């Protein structure tokens, strides 16, 4: 028995040794752009094979199908008045971050800088910025009125991004390395959390979301057997005011060779 414990101790002690050596020189952390596991840049078109009659045309008033909207939200939706939205300059209520990727249209994704991914959308001519780093500078409202973590509420809100790590359960590393091999370390999804949203619509027919809403998005890139490149974004909208439960959708985008079909249009209330 003693020999067995010696053997186990030896193995446990030896495993970490294989990873030891002279302490590595401190390398500067790679920027989000340099560390990107996949490339989302380029022009992409939304392919509407789902929710067609709620996305390609403006749904009828009172059509709340599929959305877990509560009674208060339905009451507000029944009062939807696109004329009023136009008269008050709120034509973009259905083009906010909680809904805009359900709009038929194209997105253009570029790196604004090493830590900021920019997504432009031709539907409603909107721009979203995904910030990979929270810095004190960003928390200070810039003079140009852009959204910040502490700034005013806007249609696109303030988005924090990271390259998502795969689900790991508890964060502490308790697994005994001799008996298990760590797997699932190749996370490559883009996770975006958006807050500071101005109240808007989940659909163009006035299904509301409140300014208490936050949005989680997970972008996954893939290449199809025929070589086409796509990404799917899973969107989780949480609104304690007008939703009974998180509103979960996933939207599919296909890569285009260039921006020849890019067609910015203004927001439309109807």
């Amino acid at each position, binding site marked *: 028995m003693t020999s067995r414990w010696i053997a186990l101790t030896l193995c446990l002690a030896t495993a970490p040794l294989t990873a030891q050596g002279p302490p590595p020189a401190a390398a500067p952390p790679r920027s989000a752009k340099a560390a990107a596991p996949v490339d989302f840049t380029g022009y992409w078109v939304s392919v509407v*094979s789902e929710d067609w009659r709620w996305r390609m045309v403006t749904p009828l008033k*009172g059509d*709340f199908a599929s959305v877990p909207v509560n009674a208060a939200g339905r009451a507000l939706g029944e009062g939807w008045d696109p004329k009023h939205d136009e008269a008050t300059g709120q034509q973009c209520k259905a083009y906010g971050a909680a809904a805009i990727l359900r709009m038929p*249209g194209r997105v253009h994704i570029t790196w604004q800088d090493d830590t900021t991914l920019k997504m432009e959308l031709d539907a409603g001519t909107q721009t979203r910025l995904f910030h990979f780093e929270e810095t004190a500078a960003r928390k200070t409202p810039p003079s140009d009125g852009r959204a910040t973590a502490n700034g005013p509420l806007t249609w696109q809100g303030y988005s924090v991004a990271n390259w998502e790590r795969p*689900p790991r359960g508890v964060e502490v590393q308790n697994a005994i390395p*001799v008996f298990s091999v760590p797997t699932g370390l190749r996370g490559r999804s883009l996770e975006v959390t958006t807050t500071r949203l101005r109240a808007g619509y989940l659909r163009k027919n006035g299904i509301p979301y409140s300014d208490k809403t936050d949005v989680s998005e*997970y972008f996954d890139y893939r290449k199809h057997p025929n070589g086409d490149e796509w990404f799917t974004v899973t969107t989780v909208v949480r609104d304690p005011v007008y939703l009974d439960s998180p509103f979960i959708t*996933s939207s*599919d985008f296909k890569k285009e060779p260039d921006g020849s079909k890019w*067609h910015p249009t203004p927001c439309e209330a109807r």
Partner: protein
Amino acid sequence: MRPFLLILAAALIVPSTAHAQVDFTGEWGPAYHEDRPERIPGPEIGDYMGLPINESARRAADSWDADRISVVTPYQCRPHSADYGMRGLGNLRVTREIDPLTQRLIAFHTYMPAWGSERTIWMDGRPHPADEAEHTFQGFSTGVWDGNMLVITTSHLKTNYYRRNGVPSSDIRKFTEYWTRHRDFLTVVTVLEDPVYLTEPLVRSQNWFLDPGQQLQPFSCEYVPEVLAPTADAVPNHLPGTNPYLMEVADWYGLSLDAVRGGAETMYPEYRQKMGPPHTTPPAHCERYCVCSAAGGCDVKPPKPRSR
């Protein structure tokens, strides 16, 4: 003592690529937050919206009559095929099959109570069988990892439907699935290729949320003649040009006739500029399937306004 050391040594040298990258196991609840009226109560007759179908598919669907299920009783217990099952959605259980000797992942198994559908996704590198091998409703599936994404290829499917209002799928279609897990959400993208009925791949994505603790129910189905058949071999249908119900969906929802007929062109944003006007004056207010309950159903008629 020597066997003990050998076991420890073996544990150290098993290659990591043989193991699961992400844990999909457990019970999942479906999120019907897209196309719920189509997926729960069922699609409207003549609704081909968003499907990249060709004229053959359209003609076959136009001939469909819902009485077919009531009269031709074997249709009553016909299961959803693997591809439609992932779209129709339902409660889902995923388990892993592990080789007890090598501890490698052999397969994922899935169970959905609707029609008791069971699938096996082989992860051990075995090839797909020859084209002439048996075709089944769940087909033959193999999976590989692409980072944290599980990529599944399925072949050997029986004929079925892309939408359960008669839009057909052929038995030579294949489909690829992309499974990703984000925290407690599961997203499955299905890419269907069918040279018989589709002009380009049909791409759809479905969502589940982790819902542990479910005791999934068994499923049973018995044939019951629901409608008296005019003849013993009758198959209810509509001959070309005679189906009187095909325009209803456009009129109920204020849509143009060409839009509801589907086709690849209708899936892209620029189609909105080409789309014709509504077939008839749209209703001022939603009249069908306007509100869906948390339990899953959608009311055909909207609830009456409360009196004040």
